[in-house]
Every structure is written in C-alpha cells, then in structure tokens.
C-alpha cells in the first residue's frame, strides 16, 4: 500500500495555519490571508447513515469541543423525531444536556485561558518561546498550574457523568438523553472533597476574572488598541435577551449595536445565511444574506455573545458583565483582546450554572426521551465555546441521512480572523522589508484571541505553526519567515 502513494516532493513547510501578506506597488499591505488547510468531507460521508448515528459520528470533528457537536446534532435530530426545538424535551433531559454543555464550556474555556493565553500574560509576549508555554507556566507558577489542571478536570468529570465518557460520549440522543445522574454522582460533583466541587469552581472562576482585570489595569493601552476593528456580532440569546449558551433565537448587531438580525428562529437559518467559497482556503466564509458577503460577515464567540446579550442570568457573572459593558458604555465592544475577558466571564457563568443545575432534583430522575411526529428535516444550533454552531440535516423515510450541512464556530469567525491578521499586518508591516519574530508573534496573538478550534475547522491547536510570506505587487517573495523553534 505504502508504495502506491505518489506525492511530489513536499517542499511546503508543515503547519496548519498559514498566512500570506500581499503588498501593493507602494510597499503597503494590500491584502492578508489566513489559509486553512484542512478538509475532511463529513457533509458527504454521513449521508446514508441512520440519523441516530449522527450525534456520535459528527462529534469526531472535534475532540476539543465534542459535546458541542454531540448536542447540536442531537438538537437537530430532536426536530426530526418530533421532540420539538429545544423546549419540547422533558426537564430531566434538557437539564442533563445543559449540565453537559456548561461542563464543556467550563473545561474548554479554562483550557484556552490557562494553557494557551496565560503563557503570554504571565511570561510576556516577548519572552523566550522555549519556555513561553504551559510547561513554562507549570514550572514557574505551580499553584496556578494545579488550579488550571483541576478546573479542566472538573469540567471533564461533569462531561463524563452526563455524557458517559470524557471525550466522545453518547449521552445526548435524538429526543433526549440516555442517562441521568445517580445521587452519588451528583454529590461528588456538588460537594466532593476539595478542590473538585462546585463551590471551589465558582471561587476559582471569579479569581480568573479578577486575574484578567488586574492584567488589564496594568496593560490597558495594549489590550484596548491591539487589533481593534468594527464588525457585526452574532449569537443565540434567550427570548428575553438573556445569555443562553444552549438554546435561543439568533440575534445579530452591528458595530454600533443596531439590530441586523432580529431574534430569528434557528429553524429558519437558511433564509438568512449563506457562505462564500474562496480558492485559497478550505474554510468557507459565512455571511448574512441580506447584507451580502462584503458587509454581512460577523464575529461569533465570547466577545460577540457579550455584545448581543442584554444580561447574564447568574448573579456573579452579571456583576462582571456590567463592569465589562461599562468600558464601552453599553455599546458593542470591538476590541479583539477583550475576548479573553469575555471568555472568563463565561467561565464564571458556567460555574454558577453547573452549581445551580446540580442542585436541581430533576437531574436525578424523570422522563429521559420523547418522540412525536417524525419530520424530514431538522436544524440544531447552540453556542459552542467558540461561538454559534449550526447543524442541519435532512433524513429520508428510510431513516438514512440525505443531507448534512455544518457551519462550525471557527468558520463563522473566518472573515474576522482574516481581518484581525490584516489589521496587525497593516500596523506592523507597512513599508518593511524584513519580517521579525516579534511581528509573527503579534499576528499569532491576534489569531489566538479567537481561540480558533483548529480541530473543527483546521486541526492544529493553540499556538499554531505560522508561516508568513510577504509578496510584492508583482507576486514576488520579498521576505519569508516561519515561526522558529528553539
């Protein structure tokens, strides 16, 4: 078999994130591109599979946020089996799914903040790349590392208890869930020995928000000014405008806060969304159909959610939300690095929500699954850690999937990530002949703020390898540099 693969010498440097920057005749940045280099073909190969397999199959898109795909597919299949759209499930089923989802948000956001962002914050953007990583943090800030590991572990334990397994569980099924919690499981998560209990997680989450605010106070100019650009923002919100990461209506606002998508039912997403295909990236470019590709692109994720929601329905996170909103006087926040702040406020909201759900007797028993009149089509949306996730399926009378359409969170952020790169490139590279390591770092920091789930959409992770090429107006290479190792 091996001998049969014929591939020309691969001279391309390896890496999943790749950036090219084009200069015009005057040496100014004309265009930057973030190329996404991965394609897998899920949309096609799930066709012909029975619909109940979809939740377990498609979560293999991503091992970082598998629960998001498990739940989005299950929500779409809820519609197919006639169980309603998010509000039709029995309380036990809905609450188990919410607990699973908040566990996922909690572990994924903790992972991002501590494992990926904190090295920059604690050790400095300019520090030696050899130690500017989670190992460096563990060696110099052991207490914080222990906290980070335990926060992630707690989130994973919540997932294991609700989904059956830490990664690629099966808990959510069309029309409901396949298990509820035993009292022993509930007690362990709620009041387990320190530090693995719900109260400790709330305390640590609050500490993480304070940690960022402290950093912000000392580095305000940098945090505010870095890669700031106006954009639309999109997320699900609850019918009353409150934040809801599991279910809601689609709301979009522009850079000034004007509604551009007014609380649309997810089942109608196709009326409002389209995607553009560009030859230089495997990742598509979604936009709002009414505004077109030029004006209709939007950001999703923590920053967008804090821009679309009117309040957060848990008290500690609400207090932080108010402080966050005050910075921009209630207007949408378009500052890229504030995404980290927004993400930590969501960590706090997730911790509070998990504690609330664990105290609810419904999770210990009750009806687990419902079904109604079978339908041919279903759409499932939710707010994954990195933003709005769309799953859409059509199922034949023979129960086999006929069509699958997936718009993952990171794809929704495709255009904003390209803009962020462009923004940094313009600020740093205009008129230069040589790319420096500092410039590469700056580009990477801009991309990292979006926490691109490089598995859903690409599949490198975190501090992705970067390969930057600077081209002149004629397309000749002026300078090429890849992020060096040590």
């Amino acid at each position: 078999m091996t001998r049969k693969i014929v591939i020309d010498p691969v001279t391309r440097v390896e890496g999943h994130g790749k950036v090219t920057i084009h200069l015009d005749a005057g040496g100014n940045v004309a265009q930057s591109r973030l190329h996404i280099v991965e394609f897998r073909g899920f949309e096609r190969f799930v066709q012909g599979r029975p619909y109940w397999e979809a939740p377990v199959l498609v979560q293999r898109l991503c091992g970082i946020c598998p629960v998001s795909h498990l739940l989005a597919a299950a929500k779409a299949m809820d519609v197919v089996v006639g169980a309603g759209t998010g509000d039709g499930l029995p309380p036990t089923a809905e609450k188990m799914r919410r607990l699973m989802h908040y566990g996922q948000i909690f572990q994924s956001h903790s992972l991002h903040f501590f494992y990926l962002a904190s090295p920059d914050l604690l050790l400095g953007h300019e520090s030696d790349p050899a130690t500017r990583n989670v190992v460096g943090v563990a060696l110099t800030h052991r207490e914080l590392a222990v906290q980070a590991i335990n926060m992630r572990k707690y989130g994973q334990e919540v997932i294991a208890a609700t989904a059956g397994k830490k990664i690629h569980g099966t808990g959510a099924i069309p029309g409901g869930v396949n298990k509820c919690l035993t009292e022993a499981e509930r007690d362990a998560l709620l009041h387990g020995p320190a530090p693995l209990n719900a109260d400790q997680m709330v305390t640590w989450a609050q500490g993480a928000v304070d940690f960022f605010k402290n950093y912000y106070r000392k580095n305000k100019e940098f945090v505010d000014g870095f890669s700031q650009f106006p954009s639309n923002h999109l997320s699900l919100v609850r019918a009353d405008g409150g934040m809801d990461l599991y279910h809601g209506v689609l709301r979009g606002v522009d850079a000034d806060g004007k509604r551009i998508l007014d609380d649309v039912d997810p089942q109608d997403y196709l009326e409002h969304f389209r995607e553009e295909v560009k030859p230089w990236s495997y990742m598509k470019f979604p936009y709002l159909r009414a505004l077109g590709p030029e004006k209709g692109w939007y950001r999703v994720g923590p920053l967008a959610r804090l821009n679309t929601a009117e309040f957060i329905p848990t008290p500690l996170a609400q207090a932080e939300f108010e402080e966050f909103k005050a910075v921009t006087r209630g207007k949408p926040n378009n500052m890229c690095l504030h995404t980290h702040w927004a993400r930590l406020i969501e960590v706090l909201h997730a911790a509070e929500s998990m504690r609330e759900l664990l105290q609810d007797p419904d999770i210990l028993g009750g009806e687990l699954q419902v079904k109604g009149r079978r339908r041919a089509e279903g759409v499932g949306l939710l707010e994954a850690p990195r933003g709005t996730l769309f799953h859409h399926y059509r199922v034949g009378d023979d129960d086999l999937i006929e069509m699958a359409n997936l718009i993952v969170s990171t794809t929704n952020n495709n255009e904003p990530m390209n803009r962020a790169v462009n923004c940094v490139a313009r600020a740093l590279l205009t008129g230069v002949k040589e790319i420096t390591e500092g410039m590469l770092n700056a580009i990477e920091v801009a991309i990292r703020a979006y926490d691109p789930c490089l598995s859903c959409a690409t599949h490198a992770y975190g501090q992705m390898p970067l390969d930057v090429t600077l081209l002149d107006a004629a397309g000749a290479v002026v300078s090429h540099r890849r992020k060096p190792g040590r």
Partner: protein
Amino acid sequence: MSAGTPTGKKIVATTSLAGCFGCHMSFLDIDERLLDLIELVEFNKSPLDDIKTFTKDCDIGLIEGGCCNDENVHVLMEFRRRCKTLVALGECAIMGGLPAMRNTISLQECLDEAYRLGPTVADSNPGRIIPCDPDIPRILNRVYPCHEVVQIDYFLPGCPPNADLIWDALTSLLAGKELALEYRTFKYD
C-alpha cells in the same frame, strides 16, 4: 540516533494529522500527572507548546490521526526520521478512523457536497469554486492509516485511548518496559 537531554530526560514530540485532537485531549486528561510528566520528559515539537519544528532528535513520537493530505504524509515521515519510537495514538492513526469513512466515496463527490451542493453554498458560489491553491495542501485520494505510510512501533487503541492507558503506555516506554494490553482496553467506539 542520539536523543535524551544532558540531564537524562527523554524527549517527546507529538502531532495531530487528520485527527480531531481528542487523543491529545485525552493525553491532557492525565491531569495532575502532567506535573510529574514534565519532570520526566522534555517536550519538543508539539502543538501543546511553542516549538514548531524539530530542534533535536526525540525518543518518543506520539501520532494522532491518519493521513488525508500531502502535508500529513510529510509530517509523518519527518516524525519517523526524528523519533526513535513512534506510537500511533487512537483509531484515526491506527486505521484512519472516522475520516476514512470517505474512502468509499470519491474525493470529488466530497468536495462537491461541501462547496457546490450544500444549502448555504448552492446559490452563492456562482463560479462553482472548489478550493485549490498552491498555498493549501493537496488532499489525498483516500485517508491512509499511519502504518501504511511509515513503520509504526506501537499502537494504542481507543477513540480516544483512555488517559490511564496513555499514561501507562508512556511510563512503560520511558522505563523501557513492555506494556501488557488487557482485553478490556480494546474499545473500538
């Protein structure tokens, strides 16, 4: 091939090819044992740190995912050259895993579905563009498991392999001991 650090730490590299990163996440699920591990090993090229290219030869290379594009093949061959021992971590690396479901379908059909036929692109891609550019890797006709491309020394089953299994395997390898895989560890979920 010389590997190991002056202090006697073994050197470990990891990569994710056509995988979902779940195997790397399961590796992180060893939790506080991570702190013990960094006393035992030094990490080299890995998406978990800031090292983008091999800077030295390594003792152990952990591979997640099979090969779905030319870049995956290139990276895998480089891992074979630079690592003494290669471990295929999880179903994707061992048998192609879920992405290999496309092996029964032509690549063109997969591309058409994603870029030309899907409901959010059918009427918004008038040029019927399918991504193809010197700046993005070429997709292989099918997804290849790692052992069809290079020699693999050990295989750890699971989707993903359980964190305890990864820990036991890694510590056995570091100690130079063979690991007995019990029947119950074989789960092809």
